[in-house]
């Protein structure tokens, strides 16, 4: 386990988090800290709880019936599960990109402008500059600037995923959660997303769930290995992949199971 005191100042710190779907417990006593402007990767076999854990960080699990949680998740010293927390505000600060690109069946412009608009920005030129900036950050601006009014569903899979990233960036988050953002993409699009993650970490705290261990090794600074709802090992990516301390971690990354 990494000692959180060795980090400068954790953006997110989780303390003994238990999570339940109805009666079955999905996460057991998770404690870890994630540093600002770093990429933290969650790896582990299917069903190990990494996606569930990711979704506790912006309270997306609230949308599933009969789930509940114990423990605390602090973002900048504020417990996001405290009763007075406004989920809308939380999700504005903690953006999310999903496994399957899910643009709205609207124009490219409207997709990106949707977030800022619901958060109260009405001015056309303000919206336009947010859309432009977000698309530029997501590396999509040059490809779509001449067809902002076209339907987003006409874009390729990789472009759609970058559009979803732009859409998430447009509300001005501090943390970006990515749930296997490249698993449905071809190798070239995947490479673009990975480059993008490298660029984005200058401004955002990024947490990425991935099935692809090479991907975790390429893009992340820290890696957490989950197995059956427990955090088995967490540390610097280099250390996890070169000299894992736990037998299970070693077995998993060397492909002995999973």
């Amino acid at each position: 386990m990494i000692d959180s005191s060795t980090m400068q100042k954790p953006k997110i710190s989780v303390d003994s988090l238990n999570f339940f779907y109805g009666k079955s417990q999905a996460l057991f006593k998770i404690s870890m800290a994630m540093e600002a402007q770093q990429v933290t990767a969650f790896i582990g076999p299917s069903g190990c709880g990494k996606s569930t854990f990711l979704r506790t960080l912006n309270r997306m699990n609230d949308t599933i019936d009969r789930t509940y949680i114990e423990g605390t998740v602090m973002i900048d010293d504020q417990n996001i599960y405290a009763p007075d927390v406004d989920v809308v505000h939380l999700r504005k600060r903690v953006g999310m990109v999903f496994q399957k690109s899910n643009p709205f069946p609207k124009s490219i412009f409207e997709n990106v402008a949707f977030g800022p608009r619901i958060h109260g920005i009405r001015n056309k030129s303000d919206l336009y500059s947010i859309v432009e900036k977000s698309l530029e950050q997501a590396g999509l601006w040059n490809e779509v600037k001449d067809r902002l009014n076209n339907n987003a569903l006409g874009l390729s899979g990789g472009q759609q995923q970058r559009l979803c990233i732009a859409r998430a960036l447009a509300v001005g988050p501090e943390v970006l959660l990515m749930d296997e953002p490249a698993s449905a993409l071809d190798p070239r699009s995947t490479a673009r997303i990975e480059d993008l993650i490298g660029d984005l970490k200058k401004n955002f705290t990024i947490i990425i769930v991935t099935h692809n261990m090479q991907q975790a090794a390429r893009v992340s600074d820290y890696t957490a290995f989950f197995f059956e709802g427990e955090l088995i090992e967490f540390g610097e990516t280099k250390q996890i992949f070169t000299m894992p301390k736990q037998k299970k971690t070693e077995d998993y990354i060397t492909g002995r199971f999973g």
Partner: protein
Amino acid sequence: MKFFKKANFRLNEFLAEKAIAAIATTSLVFIFLILIFVFRESIPLVLGYAMEEDNKLSLTALFSNNWIPVSNHPQFGIWPLIIGSIKVTAISLIIAFPIAVLAALYTATLASKRTKEIVKPVIEILAGFPSVVIGFFALMVLATFFQNVFNLRFRLNAFTGGVALSLAVIPIIYTVTEEALNTLPKTMTEASLALGATRWETSLYVLLPAATQGIFAAFLLGLGRSFGETMIVLMATGNAALSSTNIFESVRTMSAAIGAEMAEVVFGDAHYNVLFFIGVLLFIFSFTLNAIAEFFLKQRMMKKFQGGA
């Protein structure tokens, strides 16, 4: 002698396939025969040799303003019937469409599971109500109620009929819209919520627009049902063939005219031909409606996937 059976022949499958094809064809043939029958009975009128008492029934007379089919000098102007149908249909849809769509939006996207489990079946039961029951309810309860509320001259009028009709149309529009909303991928809702949208914003600005096509189809189905519905309007509209724009006057719809008069008409009579002609109009209307819907939906789909605006 052959060593092998012909590999691509299976007797059972062959027979089953033919049998199913035959059954499918039969139902097609029936529809086609009904069509031919309805059209044939209106031919004398269309070709202009349907006879009134004294002279030929002309097409101008057909689209005149007086529907007095049973008299010494019958007049078969179907305008009042067309206006009646349009009036009642419009009233019913103006009431039913917003209610049904909002109800569907509520149960499909906002309501808790328990509320949904109660509300949805109840609205769907309404779809199974015999229209004569709705008509009876309108006749006995609604008519009196509206007369008192609006202080009306006639108990039975286009408004009462339209309201009653909306009870029959709501479940249709509701069911199709609900279906359209439910088939939207869950990831769409998640994407919106993850951007910090509330449930309400998600429903209104993401899900509802995304289901436009289905809602349009729902509207057309409701329109078709409303236009063709007979029993409710027969019981609740008063059946006076007046062509006025006042929604509180009695009307006779096209469907109600057929329903009320067909049984008492003389075979082969001009009146008989005219009723069939009205039937043809109803048929053409619903056919066009479906064609438009199909065409419109396809156009939109094409645009959508070609990335057009």
